[in-house]
Structures are given as structure tokens and as C-alpha cells.
């Protein structure tokens, strides 16, 4: 009699434990990050430190789930600054520069998760050793960017919102695709993107290369299978790009190239088609308006009816909840 | 050597020389005074630790923090710029390991440094003087060999040739025989005597062997524990009593062919 009761209790415990495990697994999410590290995260994340992808905070409304950001959010990102100006209570403690995190500051915030880039893997290992969960990202294509955004969605329980944002991005991309698909191959322009130095070009790997492809441009540097490479000016003259874009945060602008006798034989310089990009993060939904900006500079005749600022403003309001013109003011344009 | 008179034409005068290292409490040199006459070979003799080397470094200007006076030809060498000093006396150091393997000729040529301007290189005249010096010392055949590849005795001769190229009236030699074998000791000292006589140089050298000092010097200055014990001709200075006092060894003085030899009594 007693034995049968014990047996029933054991079976009950067994069943309950299975259910318990099931419940646990449903709340723990397994991520493999860019460095190949496997990280188990309890979702939705409640206390995150976001180092590079801070533009996703307004986009996915993560204000209540983020406890810290890198200094760069406040110092470099006009969008973030504009939003803080409207909502001062959104301000978060900063944890150092994106390239050099202040680990102590991070630890003090007692985060559930740190999402950073893989620029300095040592920081990631260090935080890991201190018992902090870290996910390292480095999207090298538009597809990967979507994956990173969707990862953020999953981590913060904002899957639906992410799809909405991606849809808005898609609208702009579709607009671009629709226009440039009409351009015959022989009329396609050669486009290069210069980085920290005028001789550093974006090559075959990276979001920039994807964007150039998307807007119907040809990146002569794409044969180099790197993210960026230093090339001789001769090489650039040989490529003879039609349009040159300069990284928004570079220390020089188009006038430097226009005034330099070594560059005068480059078509883009001769025809004064060198443009410095706005200082926006490319690891953000804003890649879509950046792409539009670039497309309109490369093929202006195909976008004559498009009012860039209006499209951007519409996008900003839907994605970030703030007006483009307000942000423009904070970016000093 | 016999018959030369001392005390005439003092070329180098040392007066009341005191020296101690910075921060040390004891003096290494305790008021040494002596003179070296022009054209004579004066040897500073003393056992290890007597202060010979310190005295030598003070006289040659390597160490400058001494008390007292060192005069050459009546001029105090104290405030002399290096260039002027080098034209007054040349220094032949003990054999040592050089940093780079210069050729023998290059080493001798360096003796001309005080005659070559800072932005110049040695000229034809300098090259000629270096050649002459090599000839004089009898090592012309070693001219192109690396300094590091010749024997110790030959190296000492090279340094002497360098000092000759310097054309200074006073030549200082620091233990010129300490690293040499018997044959080379005699050869080198013979050479020094020959050249000194030929060029009328005033030679001051430090030695620790009394017999070598006796054979090759006109005057000997004996020092011990930083004090001058004696000064005078070898015959006058090197008595059995002095040797016993300075070296603590019983000796007997023997006269052979007019030369004085000190023989230790075992």
C-alpha cells in the first residue's frame, strides 16, 4: 500500500521535472556570436549594455531594457542626442568608448547581457571571465545586418517590432531597386567608398559593398576580399570611379580631393562627384536612407521626383519616432 | 740613462694631489707631489691597490674631481678643453676589447682626432702622419689587418703608434705590459724607450714590476696606499729596504753590467 503511494509520488515528480525543464528551455535562448562563442541568454533581456547598435534602442523601444551605452552614442550619434533632448529621462550611464570599454563601469551596472562588436575580442573574453554574458557582432552584409537586428528583437522580446522596422527599410530598398533595375549594364557607374584615409577603400566584404551593389553601382575594389584595404593612388586612377563617397566620420572631405593634384585624373574628381556621407551608423536601420542618399547621388536622373528629406523624415518618424529635421539640427548640418 | 741629470726642465708637475670618489669617506690619493722631466721616462711604480691607476687617471684628465694641481709645461690642465689637452699628452690605455673591428691603420688614424675639425674627416697630412707612426713603431705590415685579429703585443704597439700620431710631447702609458707575455713585455718597453729617445718625448708610465721599471726608466716614483714613498733614479730609489717596505718581500740587489736587478729571496 505504502509502496504504491511512493511509486505514484515518484512518477508525479518525474512528470513535473520534465515540465520544469521544458519551461526553463523555453526561456533560455542559445546564441552563436560572430566569434563562434556559444552564449545562453535568458530572454527577454532586462538589463542590457549596448555598445555599437545604440540606434536600435529608439527603433525597437528598448529604453526600459537597456542600462548602459557606450560614450559614442551620446558623442557621435546625432539621432541619439536628439531623442535624449526630447526625453531627458531616457539618458543612460555611459561605459567608455566603443573601442575601449570601461569594464568596471560595465560591471557596476550589473547587466544581464552586453552586446558589442568584435573589434577588440580581448574585451569580450575579459568580460566573459568576470561572469558577464557578451554577444559579439560584426555584420558584414545587409543580410547579416538583418540577422543582427532580428537577434536584438529576439533578445528583447521585440520580434514583431523588428519586422516592422525591416519592412520600412525594405520600402526604401525596394524603391531604389525599382529605379536602378532599369539602368542598362553599360550605363552602370563605378563607385568607391573611402575610409579613414583617402587611400583606404571599402572592398569586397562589408555592408558598404552590399549597398553599392544594391544601388546599381559597381565597386571596382570588390575583387579584394577584405573589409578595407590601403591602395596606391595609382590603383584608384586605374579604377577611374565615376562617383566617390567618403566615410561620414573621416577627417577630410571632398575639397581635399578636389585640391590635390594627384587626384585630378580620377573621373569622380574631375566631374566633381565626390560626396561625404552623413555621419550615420551603418549598423542601423538608417542604412536604408544612406543607401537612398547614395543612389540619388549616383543616378540623380532616376530619382528626380524623389524628395530625399521627405522620405527620410517619413522613415524617421515611423522607425525612431522623431522628425528628420530635428535630428538634422543635432547633427550640425 | 746613466749620467742624465734630473730636476731640470720639468715637463709635468703634480702638486698635492688628493682624490676620492664621490660619496666615499677615504682618500685614495693622499697629497701626492712629483715631477716628470722633459725627455725622460718616468715610471710610477707600486703594488696593486697603491693608487697607481687612480693617479694615472687624474693626470690624464679622465677623472677630474681631484684636489691639487696637475701642470704641464707650467699650464694647469684643469680647465683645458679636451682638444688642447690631447695635443699636450697622449694616452696609451691597457689593451682592451674594442666594440668594432677597425683596421690597424684606422685605429692609428684616430690619434689625429684633436687635429680634425668636427665637421671634417682626416686629410692627406693626417694620413701621412699615421703612416709615419706605423713605420716608426715597426708595424707597417699589420696596417690592413683588423685590430681584433692581431696578438696582444701587437695591439699594444698599435696603441703606441696611435699615441705617436697624436704628436703630443707627453705620452702616458697605463701598465703597457700587464697583458703581455715575457717576450712582448721586453719588446714593447724597448720600443717605447727607442721612440721616446728618437722623438724627445716625455714618457710617464705605470708599472708594477720593479725590475722592468729599473731597466727602462730614467726616474721612478714609488707610491703605496696613496702616498708617495720615493722619487729619484732607479739606483737611488730601488733599495732592498724600500722593496721590503712597499712589497713586503725580502730581496737582494744585484749589479750586472751596470744594471740593477732585484732578486727575491725565497
Amino acid at each position, binding site marked *: 500500500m505504502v509502496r504504491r503511494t511512493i511509486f505514484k509520488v515518484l512518477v508525479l515528480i518525474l512528470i513535473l521535472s520534465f515540465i520544469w525543464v521544458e519551461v526553463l528551455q523555453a526561456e533560455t535562448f542559445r546564441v552563436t556570436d560572430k566569434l563562434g562563442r556559444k552564449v545562453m541568454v535568458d530572454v527577454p533581456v532586462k538589463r542590457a549594455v549596448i555598445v555599437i547598435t545604440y540606434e536600435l534602442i529608439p527603433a525597437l523601444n528598448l529604453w526600459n531594457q537597456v542600462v548602459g551605452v557606450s560614450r559614442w552614442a551620446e558623442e557621435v550619434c546625432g539621432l541619439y542626442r536628439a531623442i535624449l533632448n526630447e526625453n531627458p529621462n531616457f539618458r543612460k550611464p555611459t561605459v567608455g568608448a566603443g573601442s575601449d570599454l570601461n569594464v568596471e563601469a560595465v560591471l557596476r551596472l550589473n547587466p544581464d547581457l552586453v552586446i558589442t562588436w568584435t573589434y577588440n575580442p580581448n574585451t569580450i573574453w575579459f568580460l566573459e571571465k568576470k561572469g558577464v554574458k557578451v554577444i559579439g557582432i560584426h555584420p558584414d552584409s545587409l543580410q547579416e545586418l538583418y540577422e543582427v537586428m532580428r537577434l536584438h528583437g529576439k533578445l528583447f522580446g521585440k520580434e514583431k517590432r523588428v519586422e516592422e522596422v525591416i519592412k520600412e527599410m525594405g520600402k526604401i530598398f525596394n524603391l531604389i531597386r525599382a529605379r536602378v533595375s532599369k539602368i542598362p549594364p553599360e550605363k552602370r557607374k563605378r563607385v568607391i567608398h573611402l575610409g*579613414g584615409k583617402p587611400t583606404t577603400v571599402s*572592398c569586397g566584404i562589408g555592408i558598404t559593398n552590399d549597398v553599392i551593389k544594391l544601388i546599381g553601382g559597381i565597386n571596382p575594389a570588390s575583387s579584394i576580399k577584405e573589409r578595407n584595404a590601403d591602395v596606391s593612388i595609382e590603383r584608384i*586612377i586605374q579604377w577611374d570611379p565615376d562617383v566617390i563617397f567618403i566615410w561620414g566620420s573621416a*577627417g577630410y572631405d571632398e575639397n581635399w580631393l578636389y585640391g590635390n*593634384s594627384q587626384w585630378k585624373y580620377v573621373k569622380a574628381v574631375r566631374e566633381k562627384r565626390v560626396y561625404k556621407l552623413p555621419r550615420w551608423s551603418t549598423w542601423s536601420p538608417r542604412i536604408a536612407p544612406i543607401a537612398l542618399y547614395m543612389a540619388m547621388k549616383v543616378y540623380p536622373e532616376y530619382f528626380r521626383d524623389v524628395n530625399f528629406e521627405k522620405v527620410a523624415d517619413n522613415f524617421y518618424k515611423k522607425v525612431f519616432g522623431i522628425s528628420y529635421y530635428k535630428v538634422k539640427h543635432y547633427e550640425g548640418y | 740613462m746613466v749620467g742624465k741629470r734630473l730636476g731640470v726642465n720639468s715637463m709635468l708637475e703634480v702638486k698635492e694631489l688628493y682624490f676620492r670618489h664621490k660619496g666615499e669617506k677615504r682618500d685614495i690619493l693622499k697629497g701626492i707631489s712629483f715631477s716628470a722631466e722633459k725627455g725622460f721616462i718616468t715610471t710610477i711604480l707600486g703594488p696593486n691597490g697603491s693608487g697607481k691607476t687612480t693617479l694615472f687617471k687624474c693626470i690624464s*684628465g679622465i677623472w677630474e674631481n681631484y684636489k691639487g694641481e696637475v701642470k704641464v709645461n707650467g699650464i694647469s690642465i684643469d680647465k683645458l678643453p679636451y682638444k688642447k689637452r*690631447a695635443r699636450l699628452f697622449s694616452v696609451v690605455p691597457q689593451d682592451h676589447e674594442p666594440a668594432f673591428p677597425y683596421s690597424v691603420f*684606422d685605429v692609428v688614424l684616430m690619434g689625429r682626432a684633436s687635429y680634425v675639425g668636427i665637421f*671634417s674627416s682626416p686629410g692627406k697630412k693626417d694620413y701621412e702622419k699615421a703612416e709615419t707612426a706605423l713605420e716608426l713603431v715597426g708595424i707597417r705590415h699589420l696596417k690592413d689587418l683588423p685590430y681584433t685579429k692581431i696578438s696582444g703585443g701587437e695591439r699594444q704597439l698599435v696603441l703606441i703608434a696611435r699615441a705617436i700620431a697624436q704628436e703630443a710631447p707627453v705620452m702616458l702609458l697605463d701598465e703597457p705590459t700587464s697583458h703581455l707575455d715575457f717576450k712582448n713585455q721586453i719588446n714593447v718597453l724597448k720600443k717605447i724607450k727607442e721612440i721616446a729617445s728618437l722623438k724627445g718625448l716625455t714618457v710617464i708610465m705605470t708599472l708594477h714590476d720593479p725590475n722592468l721599471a729599473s731597466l727602462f726608466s730614467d726616474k721612478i716614483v714609488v707610491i703605496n696606499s696613496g702616498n708617495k714613498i720615493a722619487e729619484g733614479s732607479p739606483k737611488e730609489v730601488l733599495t732592498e729596504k724600500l722593496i721590503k717596505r712597499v712589497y713586503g718581500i725580502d730581496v737582494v740587489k744585484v749589479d750586472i753590467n751596470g744594471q740593477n736587478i732585484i732578486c727575491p729571496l725565497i
Partner: protein
Amino acid sequence: MKGIKALIILASPFIFGWIALFLGAYGVSPIMVLKILLNETLHVFNVGDIPEKAIIVDIRLPRVLLAGIVGACLSGAGVTLQGIFRNPLVDPFILGISAGAAFGCAITIGFLSFLPIQFMAFIFGITAVALAYTVARTQGEVSRLTLILSGVIVSAFFTALVSIVKFLVDPNKLQSIVYWLMGSFSLADWKGVKVSLLGVIFGLIPIFLMRWRLNVMSLGEEEAKALGVNVSRDRLLFIGFSTFAVAIATSLCGIIGWVGLMVPHLVRMLIGPDHKTLVPLSLAGGASFMIAADTISRTITSFDIPVGIITALTGAPFFIYLMKRGGKEAWGK
């Protein structure tokens, strides 16, 4: 035999430089190169206003000249310092010059971009050496060991300062600093060549004139003094001139290591230690080594490999070979 070796070394920068003019990303036929050069110098063969002309005259020629002059500066400083410190393994950076120059550049790029970079690099290069000298100067005398130690300390100090600048600066400028620190000739132009001539006039020429003195200096302080050399003053002059040369070189093209250490040592092994020949041959050797390394770095792949990697990869094996063959003798040990 030695005479022939010396002649080859002396002629090598011109041979390498000449060949380098024919090589580059933008293929220019050898005949065209000759025509352009003759057109520039003797005004024959009117080639017109073609891109090839800009390539040869505006891009390759200044780049080759700059590489040669920088190589000579680094090598000249190296041979001087090796002579003064009686140590064939001493290098221009051991006194902290490069770290000081690096700091000058970093601080200019980061915060004082209105000032010319070369000027700041030089100012701080000299500051570093002056600091090292002052720190080492105990009782009115400077022993060479103490000087080396102070140099190492000063170098560490300025390197730390550079890290601080990198930390404080905003991310855009950070990129520029990082790129500059890596060392490259890709932005070489005639302005740079003109600036580098300062290094020649106020650095290399005085060292060349004083070169015989180095023989005497290398005997050691005591002997040099006894031979009539004002050691403290001359050493100061030598260090000053070589610092100037290195600072100019570094300010123009970043940090390129190995040349100042390697070339004098190699030349000494081939020719002998007499500075009368060693100095001019080190200058020539440094120039041709740098030209060769830069030409390799810009022609081997479609992008520029950092030239410091080339100098290390080519210098090291050759050095090992010479060491094995008869290095001990060259050291006089």
C-alpha cells in the same frame, strides 16, 4: 672586393629607384615612362596632358623619392646611434623618438588638427629625447646604459600617452591615428618630399660631415676624451641630428621599424666598421632598402601591404644569413 661591394651599395638606391618608376598598379609602358621623364627633364617628346604623366611625375616619382629619403634618414640615425652607444643592436627608437613623434601626431590628429602634423611630431620627438637625456643625467655625466634605460622609460611613457589619446578621441579621428601609426607611403606627394629634405639638410648632412668622429666616439668615453674629443658635446650633437632625421621621417609616413636597426648592421658586416665609408653606405643602403620594400608593398597584390611588414619579412632572413656566415667577426668579439 670591398670596393666593388661599396660601389654596388652606393649605386643601389638609384638602380632600385629607377626600376620602381616602371612598376605600379596603373600599367605604364616602359617607353612611355622614359618619354615622360625626358619630357619633364629635357623638355623633349611632348606627351601632352595625359594621366600617365601624372602617374609618373606626381605619384610614383615623389613616392620613390620620399621612400628613399625616409630610408636614408632612418638608417643614418641608426648608424649614428649604434656608433655612439658602441652597440650594433641599438635602434633609433630606443631613445623614445618614435614614441614621442607618435604622440605628437596622435594629439594633432585628435585635438589640434589646425597644426601641421610634421611640426608636432618633431617637437615631441625632440622632447622625448631631451626628457630621456635629462632623466639619465645624474652628476653632469650621462652613462650610455642609463641613457638607454631612460629612453625605454620615456618610450613607454609616450606610448601610454598615445593610448590615452586614442581613448579620449572620437572614433572617427581614432581611425586616422591608427592608420598613421601603421606606416605607409600611399599618400606620398611632392610636399612631403620637400619636407623630408629638411631632414636631409639638418639631419643627414651634419651626420655625414661628422662621420669620422663616430670612429673615435665608438672607442668609449675615456679613450675618446683622451684623444681630444669633447664627448658630451659631440654626443649631444649626434643625438640631436639623428633625432631630427627620425622625427621628420616618422612624421611623414608613420612608424616604420627595422630599417634603422638592420641596414647599418648589414652594411657593417659587408664593408667594415670605419664610419667614413659606413655612414654614406648606410644612407644609400637605407634608401634602397626602403624603396625596394615600398615597391614590393604596392605591386605584389592589388592593395598596399603595410610597408613595415615588408621591411621585417625581408630584413630578418637576410640578417640571419649574414649572422651565420660571419657575424661574430663584425662585432669585434
